[in-house]
């Protein structure tokens, strides 16, 4: 019998003991975001059966725009011509994905669905200096007309690859590879000195 997963889940940032570092107020606030379930969804954008299966399972159409995000607490982000990322709350317990898998199977199994829930760690960067801090390590243009809230991009930030989801003009979530998370966090803190970065729990 599998245990309740929430007890055994361990963040790669746990070893940093962020609690002991928390506090202060600065131009930018760093925190670990809530863990999510996430899935790579692959398929042909122009394959009607595939698109219908996705819509049937998730209730949202396949986003066609690069880097668009759809849904309220679930995100479906287009990351490549035939690649999407489905990000859903942990509390969902894999239901979205299960539905998607069965719809895809019913449609004759187009595309691919791969669970990568453990592959990334979510780090939230917020505050009026959030873009400045991120801009120390990425060449992405953060002008809200170029990168409006609600959108996501996959890019390189500092020492890691990251999927950046812009929640608001000055609030971002970064999904970074789990094995890099600790180094990346430390890099953020170091670069954040310029902005008096504070840590929130």
């Amino acid at each position, binding site marked *: 019998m599998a*245990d309740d997963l929430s007890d055994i889940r361990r963040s790669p940032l746990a070893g940093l003991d962020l609690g002991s570092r928390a506090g202060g107020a600065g131009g930018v606030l760093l925190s670990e975001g809530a863990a999510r379930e996430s899935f790579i969804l692959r398929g042909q954008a122009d394959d009607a059966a595939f698109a219908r299966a996705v819509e049937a399972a998730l209730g949202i159409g396949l986003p066609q725009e690069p880097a668009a995000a759809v849904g309220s607490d679930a995100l479906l982000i287009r990351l490549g011509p035939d690649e999407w990322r489905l990000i859903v709350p942990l509390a969902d317990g894999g239901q979205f994905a299960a539905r998607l898998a069965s719809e895809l199977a019913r449609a004759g199994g187009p595309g691919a669905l791969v669970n990568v829930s453990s592959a990334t760690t979510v780090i939230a960067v917020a505050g009026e200096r959030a873009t400045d801090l991120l801009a120390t390590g*990425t060449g992405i*243009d953060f*002008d809200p007309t170029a990168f409006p809230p609600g959108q996501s991009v996959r890019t390189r930030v500092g020492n890691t690859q990251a999927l950046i989801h812009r929640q608001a003009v000055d609030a971002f979530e970064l999904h970074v590879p789990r094995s890099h998370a600790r*180094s990346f966090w430390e890099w953020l803190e170091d*670069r954040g000195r*310029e902005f008096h970065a504070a840590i929130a729990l």
Partner: protein
Amino acid sequence: MRRQPFRAAEGGHLVDRSEPLRFDFDGHRYEGYQGDSLASGLLAAGVRIVARSFKYHRPRGVWGFGSEEPNAMVTTGIREDARANLKATEILLSDGLEAFGQNAWPSVAWDMGGAVGLAGRLMPAGFYYKTFMAPTRGWSALYEPLIRRMAGFGPAPAAPDDAFYAKRRIHADVLVAGGGPAGVAAALAAARAGARVVLADENVRFGGALLRMPGEIEEGDGLAWIDTAIAELETMSHVCLLRRATVTGYYDHNLLTVAERPDDDVEPSTPAVRLWFVRARDVVLAAGAHERPLLFDGNDRPGVMSASAAAGYAHAYGVLAGRQVVVAGNNDSIYAVARLLRGAGVAIAAVADSRSGGGVPDLPCRMGWVVERAVGSRRVRGVLLRRADGKPEDKGERIACDFVAMAGGWSPTLHLHAQARGSLDYDEERGLILPGRAGGVNRSAGAAAGRFDLDGCLAEGWAAGLAAATSSGHERPVGPPPRSPNRSAGDAPVSWQVGPGKRFVDLQYDVTAADIELAAREGYQSVEHVKRYTALGMGTDQGKTSSMAGLVLLSEALGRPVARTGTTTFRPPYTPVPIAAMAAGLVGEGRDALRRTAADDWHEAQGAVFTAAGLWRRPRYYPRDGMEEVETIEAEVRETRGGVGIVDVGTLGKVDIQGRDARVFLDLIYANRISTLGIGRGRYGLMLREDGRVFDDGVIMRLGEHHFYLTTTTAHQHAVMQHIEFLLQTVWPELEVYASDVTEHWFAAALAGPGSRALLGRAAPELDLSDAAFPMMAVRAATVAGLSALVFRMSYSGELSYEIAVPADHGLALWTRLLSEGREDDLTPYGTEAMGVMRIEKGHVTHAEADGRTTPDDLGLGRMVSADKRGVGKRSLDLPALRQKGRRQLVGLSVIDTQARIPPGCQVAESSDMKPAPPLGHITSFCYSPTFGRAIALALVENGRARTGQTVHITSPMTGLSMAAEVVPPVFYDAQGTRLHG
């Protein structure tokens, strides 16, 4: 403490006289004001000698005003804190600043090195190429050490720079380089039009040339207009104003670097330098012009300086470079300079204008007169004036003065334009090199484009700003351009007047006119040869004030037009950039993230000694009380082989493969056949590079009809993924296959040893582990230690073994639960060393063997290449060299002396004498085998397989060690594989 004898009673828009500061130069204390530069502070104090020249150790004074300064380089701070080669003109005075002269002993004022100057005649340009050749090793043994001692300017650094440095990467519609009248006008026009603007100027205050000399804009003071414009820009959120920010480089696709030196002393979080990387759609180059020197004997004496700098010290700092000046030059600016100096309290001894006729009544003008020589050695005491058209026998006239303001005309700053690969046009009539066709998207304006009147600069800047905004899609109305009554600047005629004597062209490297003539005479005639032969323009100022003069002199020496001589290549940075700024954010884990597996915290808590595996760290071994490293590793091996061990294999690359054509594709990328795998089964696979060499290996498991999971070596995770995508997207795009890198999602641990089945049986009670239900190379989904997992039965150690994979978030739980479950089995965690020993005993290859030169056959894996299918790299195996006899083949070596230990990096030779001769082969992996009680190795040996049974020598010539060993098959341990079945 000394007073400020050369501070004028009033004036100085950059200084705050209510805030005096103290500073030290070469051990003497002086006073200056908030806002002073070190140069203005020293001048105010009457310090004239601030440096010594490179070669002849001649005394040198302040020459310029800003970043163009060739002479006044100093070191600030002492020992660990020292910063060398800073320009006194760019250092902001701060209270307690300590600065020192360089390249002199005991001090720049009294320098023993000056004696070298006496031998100056022996040291023309390039003298070192002509001597110091005998005896054969004479150069490096005798002369070079002496030369090296004389090298360099400032002291060698004694400690790292621990200041904070920052970076920022931004996008702009318009970057404006230079904040003089042209640049500010450009920025204002572009910003009003709606463009995202970055305006950067290297000075503390915007205004450019107006900082040095007043000018009128819109019927008022020019600087006041600048301030108003800046105030307007400051209110706009789409504008970024950068002061003390030098645009240092112009790179591909309109990327520019800007080194900002935020005001010192603000707060600890303020970086010493913030390096901006600006990706601009359009660029306005409004970086102004540099004043040229005049060439006369002694033009390097302390007190001889740029006229606009002399004016600038008076205007910006209220500092006089002396009491009595000779202003000399070839253009109208000398009158304005003389008047400004006179107004500040300087006596005007003469104004020598090389042009004949004209002149102004209010100044002691000498029309048609030039300076022939500066008199004085430690400082100027006067000049010898001579008629420009005079005959050599004219004696000229000596005029006393204590400084000389020389105005040789202006050279537009072409640096950024040229870095962007713009063309350069020589305007013969004006004697100017002007920016021609732009490279990259940019436009030059103002003095940088050869426009020297204020009105013209404003108009051109405004138009450029507007055009740049338009080209980046912004067209809001902007109003009319600012105007100035200063509408003409009276160009300087080209007059590189030259008399006899030591006429310095490059002050920093002591390059004289004679050196340039010598180079030309000796055949070093390309301008680039002259640069390299004489070092002209190679100093820390990169020839800002000297290149043009050198160019003209060379052209004259060769009797060829300047346009044909050309310039040397302009290269970044415009002014030197701290290496620490370039490195910011990229040190240590900031550069290479340290990858940690899900069980890393446990390993660390356990005190594991780590080793690097690519960017990952992995436990090398787990130290035990009272045991040496080697003993510990042996124990880990013994306990695993005799009981059960656990190892973290979370670093292996993992790829999920799905799609209708997955089987077809896997057959193509592996040398052996994969398509025949049944669901729930796995196979060892070998990947080749297209050139036939072994690329990678791993295990492929079939999870479903069209679903596979494969592992890669730790080192090749990314390379394999990229390889797969390359093939799928460019070579076989018709295949429907989706590959996803799932390395980060999965954690895996391997249980190995005869006890593994029992332990796993308890941890996964629902799983039938019998050979029949769960054979070798099978994969099963199961609950292990309460966690959903995938379990593979496979072995790397040669023992019965299972790899258990769980999502990485559960990895630590899996690890700790297995360890507690295994307590009764004496479960031993083992590290990479023990793993390495077991794999060598078992003869598995790694990157040490598959080193990119070896074929499958070399490694004894030739039989894996399936004969009846295509695949990447297979065709290359038929090339003659890959089938040739005599290739090095993988063998095992068993060391005969059981006490011997193999040192790293050994060769394999026929004899033990280690005399020069081609060796037979080399060791690829080696260890002491606790299982066999002797050292063993894997090696690549010429015709190795045929040598089985022979004795060879494992040798290490550098340490003198060697040992005899028997050639054996590479699988030492359990060649029949019986142990895999427990």
